[in-house]
C-alpha cells in the first residue's frame, strides 16, 4: 500500500475526530516540510479559483436567511425591520427558514444545489467592534492577545506554504488588498477595477494629456529594463519591475481578450469588480491566480435598514448572478468557488432608528458548481441569547478548513494552527 497522501491523512484524522477524539495540535514545522511535497502529487486545488466576497459592516443575517420556524418571535423582536412572511422565498425545501426576496436573483443557484448556507457561524467570546471582528476573520485567529501572527491573513499563510510565490498574480485583491491575503512569503497584488471592469492602476500609466506619446514612454521604459544594471541591489528592483510590466501586460491582455454575452449591472462598482475577476479568471491558465478578494461595504445598517439593506442585497445578488453566468459561459464554473462572509451578524431585536445594532453569530454562504447545496449547521435560537445576541454553533475556522482542504489543496492544520474539522460542503 502506498503512503497516504496528505489529504487522505487529514481525512483519516477528521474521521478520528468525528468519533469524539481530540487530536493534538500537530507540529507545524515538521508537517510543513513533508506536506508541500505530498500536496504537489495531489490533484486537489489544481487550477481551482477561490473568490472571497466580504460584506463589510456586518450584514444582517436574520434578514438574509429568515427564521420561518421562529417567525412570530422574529416579527415581535423586529417590529420595524422584519421581512413579511409571505415575501420570504422558499429555500432548499426547508420549513424552518427561507431567503430574503432581495436575493431572488440567486435563488436559481440555490434551487440547482449550487449554494450552501452555513448557519450560526462565529467564534467564542465575540467582539462587537468592526475592526476587531474583521481582524479575527481576516487572520483566522480569534485570540485577541495574539499580536504579530494575528496580523497575517489566513489566505496569506496558505499562500506562503502552498502558493506560487514567484507569480506576482498568485493572489489578487480587487481595489486594494485585504489583510486576509497578507503574510510573509505570500505574493499579493492589488488591482483596481474601473467602471468597465478593466484593470485601472495595474498598468504603467502615462500622461493622459498626451496619449500620442504613450507608446514612446512605454517603449523607453521597457528598453531600459532590458539593459543590464550595474549593481546587484538594482537588479532586484529591476527584476520586480520587469515582472510588473509583464504581469500588467498579462492583465491588460486578459481584459482585452475577454468577450462575454453576459450583461453585468451597469454603473455599479461591485459588479465592475466581479467583472474584472471574470476577465482575469477566464485567463487563469496564463495568470495562475488562485484567490481573488473583493469587498462591498455599507452593511452597517444602524438606521433605515428597510431601505438600505434591500438595495445592498439586490446589488450583491445581481452582481454575483451575472458573475456566475459569466463563469458558466466561459466554462470555468466548475473551477470557481465563491465564499461570502461578513464580520458579524446583527442584534436580534431591532433598534428605534429602523435599523439593527452590532451582533455576533451570522450565516455565511458558499456558491459554485462544486458546492454540495443545502444548509449546514442548525438554525440559531432567537430565544436562547447572550446579551440579545445569537449564540454561535459553527466555528468560522471550520469553514476555512473545509475550503483549504477540499478546494485550495493544503493543510488546514498548518494554516490555522489547529484542527477544526470539515463541514463537507464541497463535492
Amino acid at each position, binding site marked *: 500500500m502506498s503512503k497516504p497522501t496528505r489529504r487522505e491523512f487529514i481525512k483519516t484524522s477528521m474521521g478520528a475526530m468525528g468519533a469524539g477524539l481530540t487530536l493534538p495540535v500537530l507540529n507545524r514545522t515538521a508537517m510543513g516540510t513533508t506536506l508541500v511535497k505530498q500536496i504537489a502529487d495531489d490533484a486537489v486545488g489544481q487550477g481551482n479559483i477561490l473568490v472571497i466576497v466580504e460584506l463589510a459592516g456586518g450584514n444582517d443575517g436574520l434578514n438574509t436567511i429568515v427564521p420561518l420556524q421562529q417567525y412570530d418571535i422574529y416579527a415581535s423582536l423586529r417590529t420595524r425591520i422584519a421581512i413579511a412572511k409571505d415575501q420570504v422565498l422558499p429555500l432548499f425545501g426547508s420549513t424552518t427558514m427561507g431567503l430574503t426576496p432581495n436575493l431572488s436573483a440567486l435563488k436559481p443557484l440555490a434551487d440547482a444545489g449550487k449554494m450552501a448556507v452555513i448557519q450560526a457561524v462565529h467564534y467564542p467570546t465575540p467582539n462587537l467592534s468592526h475592526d476587531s471582528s474583521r481582524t479575527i476573520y481576516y487572520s483566522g485567529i480569534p485570540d485577541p492577545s495574539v499580536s504579530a501572527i494575528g496580523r497575517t491573513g489566513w489566505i496569506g499563510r496558505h499562500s506562503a506554504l502552498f502558493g506560487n510565490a514567484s507569480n506576482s498574480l498568485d493572489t489578487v485583491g480587487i481595489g486594494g488588498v485585504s489583510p486576509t491575503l497578507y503574510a510573509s512569503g505570500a505574493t499579493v497584488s492589488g488591482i483596481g477595477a474601473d467602471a468597465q471592469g478593466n484593470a485601472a492602476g495595474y498598468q504603467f500609466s*502615462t500622461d493622459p494629456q498626451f496619449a500620442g506619446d504613450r507608446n514612446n514612454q512605454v517603449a523607453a521604459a521597457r528598453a531600459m529594463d532590458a539593459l543590464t*544594471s550595474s549593481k546587484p541591489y538594482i537588479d532586484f528592483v529591476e527584476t520586480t519591475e520587469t515582472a510588473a510590466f509583464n504581469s500588467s501586460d498579462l492583465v491588460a491582455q486578459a481584459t482585452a481578450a475577454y468577450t462575454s454575452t453576459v450583461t453585468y449591472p451597469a454603473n455599479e462598482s461591485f459588479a465592475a469588480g466581479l467583472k474584472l475577476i471574470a476577465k482575469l479568471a477566464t485567463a487563469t491558465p496564463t495568470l495562475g491566480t488562485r484567490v481573488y478578494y473583493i469587498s462591498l461595504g455599507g452593511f452597517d445598517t444602524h438606521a433605515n435598514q428597510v431601505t438600505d439593506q434591500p438595495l445592498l442585497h439586490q446589488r450583491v445578488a445581481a452582481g454575483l448572478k451575472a458573475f456566475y453566468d459569466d463563469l458558466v459561459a466561459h466554462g470555468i464554473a466548475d473551477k470557481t468557488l465563491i465564499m461570502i462572509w461578513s464580520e458579524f451578524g446583527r442584534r436580534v431585536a431591532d433598534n428605534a432608528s429602523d435599523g439593527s445594532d452590532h451582533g455576533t453569530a451570522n450565516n455565511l454562504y458558499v456558491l459554485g458548481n462544486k458546492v454540495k447545496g443545502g444548509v449546514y449547521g442548525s438554525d440559531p435560537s432567537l430565544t436562547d441569547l447572550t446579551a440579545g445576541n445569537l449564540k454561535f454553533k459553527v466555528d468560522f475556522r471550520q469553514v476555512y478548513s473545509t475550503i483549504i482542504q477540499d478546494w485550495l489543496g493544503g493543510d488546514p492544520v498548518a494554516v490555522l494552527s489547529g484542527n477544526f474539522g470539515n463541514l463537507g460542503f464541497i463535492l
Partner: protein
Amino acid sequence: MSASAFDRMAHLLRRAGFGARPDEISNVYLKQGFEATVEQLVNYEQVAEDSSLPAQPDTGGGNFDITQLDLDDFSAWWLDRMIRTKRPLQERMVLFWHDHFATSVSKVNVPNGLKYLYWQNLLERQYATGNFRDLLKGINRDPAMLWWLDNYLNIKGSPNENYARELMEIFTLGFDASQAGGYTEADVQQAARAFTGWGIRRGVDVPAENAPNGPLTDPAQTVDIPPNTPNTSRASQNHDYTNKTVYGVTQNFNGDDIVDLILDHEPQRTFAAKMIGKKLFEYFAYENPEPEVVDHLAAVIKRTNFDLKAVLRDLFLNTKAFYSDRAIYSLIKSPAYYVVSAARLLQASIQTRGINGGNRGNNSTATLGAMGQQLFNPPDVFGWPGGNEWSTTAQMLARANWANNLATNRSTTAGNTGIPIDTVLAAGSLGSNATAEQVADYFISLLIQVPLSPSMRQVLVDYLKKNDAGVISTFTLDTATKNKKVRGLIHLLLTRPECQNF
C-alpha cells in the same frame, strides 16, 4: 576613498535629508564644506524653519480641532512638512522613530485614538535628535504606546508583560541580547511590575495650542504615572510598590527607573548602545555593518551618554564606512522617502491629502498604502520590513503611477503646486537652446544622481527626440516640449529601478 567630494556631499544630503539639487550641492553645500553642512543638518534648531509650514493639521476650514482629526488630515500635515521643511534630518529621524516605536492606528482605534498617534508624532519630533533616555521616558508614558502595547491592562497582581518585553526586545537591547546574557525572561516579568498602573487617564486632552514648534504639553497630563498620582487614584492602586529584581538589582523600581537601569547598568548599557548605534547606521548607511563600525558608534553613544546629536554628527563626519562604496546608493527608498524626495527635488508643493491612503487597501492605486507604507499603520510592532520587501510588482506600479501623477501635475494653485517646469529647468541652467542630451543628463543628475549606462542614457535622449509616430525628429526646448517630453522624461526617471535606490 573613491567617491568625489561632490558625490560624497550628494550622498550625505540624500541620507541625512531627502536629497539636494546639483546646483544646491555645488553652490551652497560644497562651498561651506562638510563640517558646516553636518552642523546645519544636525543642529537644525539653528536653521529657521519655513514659516509657511502649518503648525498643526488642518481639520477643516484651516482650523485645528484635535477631536476632528482624521488620518488624511494628519498624514497630509506630516507629508507636507517632510516635503517643505528646512530641517530635513529632523523629519528623517521622526520617520526613524515612527518605525522604531512602530504604533499602528489599526489597534489604537479607540474613539478619537488618532490624537494619541498625533501626540506620539509630536513627541518623536521634539526628541528626534535629543537624548535617547528622554525619548524613552516620553515613550514610557505615551498614550498611544500605553494602548498599543496593552500597558493600560498591566496591573498589580496581574501584570501584562507586553510593554516591558518590547522595551527590551525591540526598543533598547534587541532580541540577540537575550541570547547573550543581556536579559532574561525573569527580567521582563520583573520589569513589567515596575510599569503596573501606568495607563491612560481618559477624557483628558492636551490643549489645542500644543504645537510642534512650541512647548510640548507634558504628556504626563494624559497618563497616570505612579507614584506621581494621588495615592487614592486608580493608577496608584494598580501599581506594585514592592521590590523588583531586574538584572540582579533589587529595588522598588518604577518604569522610568527601568529605562535608567537599561542605559546605566552593564552589560545592558553596552547592548543598548550597540543596538541603537547599529540601527541608526543601518538606517543611514547600509545593512549588516562590520562589528568594528558598531563598536565605534556604541563607544560614542556611551561616551556622550546617549546623546543622539553626538552620534549622528560622528556618523556623518568621522565614520568612514558611511562614505564607502558599500554605502553609496545601496539602500532602497521607503515609499515615504520616495514621495518626499521626488517632490522636494522637483520643487513641487503637491496636495498631500489622500496620498497616504485612507485605509489599508484603499481604492486608489497610487498611495503610500498601495506602495506598502501607510503612515501610522505599520504592520506590527517590528515596524515595516523594508528593503526588498518594498518591491512587489503592485508596489512598483503604485510608485510608477504616483510618479506619473506628480510628473503630470500642472497645477499652480497655492498649496497644490505641481512641478514648476520653468523653475526646475532654470535651476539646471537649461535654456531654449538646450539639447536633448543636456536635458537628459541634467534630469539624470537631479533625480538619480549617479550616471546611467551610455545605452540607457541614449534611450532617454531618443525618447526626448521622438514624435508621436516614434520617429526621431528635431529637439527644441520650447513650451510644448517642456510640457510633454520633459514631464515624460521625469516620469521615466522616477520609475527607473535606479531611482528606487538612494
